[in-house]
């Protein structure tokens, strides 16, 4: 390894990054965009779900139950008298379900025969929302029943729920750190893959290979500038998360940077590997999207629970560096420094990175064939 050559390659790469609007966009615009989307558009907190309330009884007690529904932040309630008028909106996606208070509501309550009194109908063509609607509607009803109907035995078990790290259960608190993981995947893998594939396409790789630069120098010279860019973006995105999107940062910046540094190794190595296999920007980009972006998005546990996936896919996720990274990010932001979790995760990332680097080195040609 020759320091002058290495420095020359790194300087070249850095100049190219600085002058490439696409690189700058990925490093600094993409984080802003994704952070905005994940803190606003993608919200797993259910609130203001539109439902209808078919209030067939006009009694004060029925009105009291209706008020219980209109009073909750979970629902946006339209009150109607007739069941017929809610079917079309349900089919047209204007409401996600309806709750029916029967005409003989008072009589039933008085007689104590309350089994199956309130009908809850959901639009289960969207199963997620349907489950939320039914759960919250039931909760509203049972809470109301418990306080308004006498003579019913209280439930033997009372549950107090506490959510550690995220007491208000704001999904942005764990989605925004996850989004940082996705940005870093884009920088590490997609950008690197595109950049090297471009060198092959433009023929500058042939010129590089014919200079005294060693293939290890070419690899390191490529990776280090992107490594540094990645760390800068981490700081930028974490700053945004903390000060603009108000995500708590309970861990240390040191832990954050350690995790990011450890993740960049496998991410960059994967980009290198893809570019040496593809040598063409279109194929490189699709491979990167398929092998890095989609898994980061879908299989890293960021949005969807890994435990609930089929076993084969669970095994596969163990090979994803981004999974360890996103777990680390979410922890460092909202739980704090849990080194007993970070260290093994960093270890896994470095291990995956080492294997990928080895493969990339193996596949990086020193000749044209």
């Amino acid at each position, binding site marked *: 390894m020759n320091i002058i050559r290495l420095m*020359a390659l790194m300087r070249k790469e850095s100049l*190219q990054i600085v002058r490439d609007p696409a690189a700058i966009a990925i490093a600094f615009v993409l984080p802003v965009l994704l952070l905005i989307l994940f803190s606003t558009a993608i919200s797993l907190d259910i609130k203001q779900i539109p439902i209808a309330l078919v209030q067939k009884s006009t009694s004060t007690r029925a009105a009291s139950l209706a008020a219980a529904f209109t009073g909750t932040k979970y629902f946006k309630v339209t009150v109607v008298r007739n069941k017929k008028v809610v079917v079309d909106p349900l089919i047209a996606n204007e409401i996600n379900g309806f709750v029916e208070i029967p005409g003989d509501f008072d009589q039933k309550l008085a007689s104590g025969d309350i089994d199956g009194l309130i009908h809850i109908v959901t639009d289960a063509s969207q199963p997620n929302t349907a489950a939320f609607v039914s759960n919250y509607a039931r909760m509203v009803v049972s809470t109301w029943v418990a306080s308004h109907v006498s003579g019913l035995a209280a439930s033997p078990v009372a549950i107090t729920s506490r959510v550690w790290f995220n007491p208000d259960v704001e999904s942005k608190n764990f989605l925004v750190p996850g989004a940082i993981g996705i940005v870093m995947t884009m920088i590490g893998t997609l950008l690197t893959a595109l950049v090297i594939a471009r060198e092959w396409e433009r023929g500058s790789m*042939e010129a590089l290979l014919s200079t005294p630069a060693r293939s290890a120098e070419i690899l390191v010279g490529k990776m280090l500038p992107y490594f540094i860019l990645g760390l800068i973006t981490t700081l930028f995105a974490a700053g945004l998360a903390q000060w603009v999107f108000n995500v708590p940062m309970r861990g240390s910046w040191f832990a954050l940077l350690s995790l990011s540094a450890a993740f960049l190794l496998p991410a960059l190595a994967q980009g290198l590997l893809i570019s040496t296999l593809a040598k063409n920007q279109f194929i490189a980009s699709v491979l990167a999207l398929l092998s890095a972006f989609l898994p980061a998005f879908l299989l890293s546990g960021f949005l969807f629970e890994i435990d609930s996936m089929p076993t084969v896919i669970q095994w596969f996720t163990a090979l994803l560096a981004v999974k360890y990274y996103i777990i680390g990010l979410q922890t460092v932001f909202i739980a704090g420094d849990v080194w007993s979790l970070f260290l093994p995760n960093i270890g896994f990332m470095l291990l995956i990175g080492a294997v990928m680097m080895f493969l990339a080195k193996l596949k990086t040609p020193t000749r044209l064939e």
Partner: protein
Amino acid sequence: MTSETVVELSEVTKRFGSVQAVAGVSASIPAGRLIGLVGPDGAGKTTLMRIMAGLILPASGRAVVVGHDSADDNESLADDIGYMPQQFGLYEDLTVQENLQLYADLRGVARKKQAETFATLLRLTRLAKFTGRLAGRLSGGMKQKLGLACALMARPKLLLLDEPSVGVDPVSRQDLWAMVEDLLKGGMAVVWATSYLDEAERCSSVFLLSEGKVLYSGAPKKLTDRLEGRSFLLRGIVTQRRKLLADLMEQTFISDAVVHGESIRVVLHEGRSPEELGKLATSLGGKIEAVPPRFEDAFIDLLGGSSSRRSRIAEKMPEVTGSETNIIACDHLTKKFGNFTATDNVSFAVGRGEIFGLLGPNGAGKSTTFKMLCGLLSITEGSATVGGHELLNASKKAKLSLGYMAQKFSLYGLLSVKQNLDFFAGVYGLSGKVKKERIAEVIDAFSLGPFLNSDPAKLSLGYRQRLALACAIMHRPPVLFLDEPTSGVDPITRREFWSHINGFVSKGMTVMVTTHFMEEAEYCDRIGLMYAAKIIALDTPDALKKGAQQGPEEPTMEEAFIHLIKQQEEQQI
């Protein structure tokens, strides 16, 4: 020192699929010499260069380069050689200075010596004014020179240059030679692959490759000498020299003939007496004049003589008729990019059946003028018309009158040869029986039959040019635009290419061509020479040469070109 052997190739072979690229080449290259590597397209020049650079392993045989066996250790081999690939990998988003700096560091030029090295290289390449400019913004010739400067950075023992002068104007070519000659003095061995045979003539020895084999090795002069007494200039034929050329090529005693200004240059087959030619000349009212042979004559002869004959495709074309006289016309044409004027008040007109050449150094504004004529660029001032239409917003009908062959290979690489033909026939509105006939015609005339299902990118350069020409003329346009049509093409293919163009022109087609290749300039009826966005000379090739004549001998086109440019430069100072 000079007796040291730098490259030792023994029975080197390499094949790609079914193509035998290099078939048993043995060669030895001593230090301090300039070695030319010549041969037709697909002869294996680039493969051999890459083998010497350690970028490709030979399938069998050994390549020992500067003491390293290329099979063992191509990384340390790279320390001792400099290599400039055909498409040099400049970083277009780095400036000239930054590119130089990068390669200086990569090639281990000591920091202390760098400033001095850069100054020398920038002086030789005349790039000193442009150090801050991004490499991507340089003109083609400037890029080529910068690439060479980067390859020349260190003083390796062996320098491999793969077609370094393609697309470079004569003035810059002189600069290139000056740089290389400077290096040779230092004891470096230089291998220069080229399809320009006047360059090969300047090498101390050449390897002539064909189909992967060495046909000739030794001093170029020795090969040229074999042709002594066989080269003639047929003078005094004023009209129809293109038709005559086609007739000449059918004579059995003639090995090669090309248009040379208003004359025709003829090479006889071995053992044929010049009397036959003399008689023919007299019957046409002209006379013959013996001229010294050129390396190109010997090259064509060694490869079995020029194979080009009459253009079958031109024969099938109907005569182009019409009343307008100025088919192509520029009137006070000006193009400005911001503050920069690329084309400045250019006016000229081209008549029917004329070949008009646009020449000039890199960056003089040829391409800009050309593009405005084709309707690819908007016009700032003045007008540019083809067949009376400005093409930028022209109707379909007006665009149909134009055939266009771009400088860079620009057919669809993702489509096969046949699919490209189908596409261009269709886009120009051909369909049904006519389309089938026209496609069959060009396949036959350009011998594309065996390659119909191949990817264009896998064809040799010569076949790619044929295909590009085929695609441009299937709709039989009355006007044909050629942007550096034979850059980097070998002389045999070039002759064939021009035999078609000559055929088209004799049917009344009008041709506009840009070129850097002075031989090609001789084929034109008139030449417009551009310099610094203006036309500085516009005349027939012979008149231009005469105007530049200083001694008793008629200058070559290249000398005339350089003279005119120098004159212009002096006037400006």
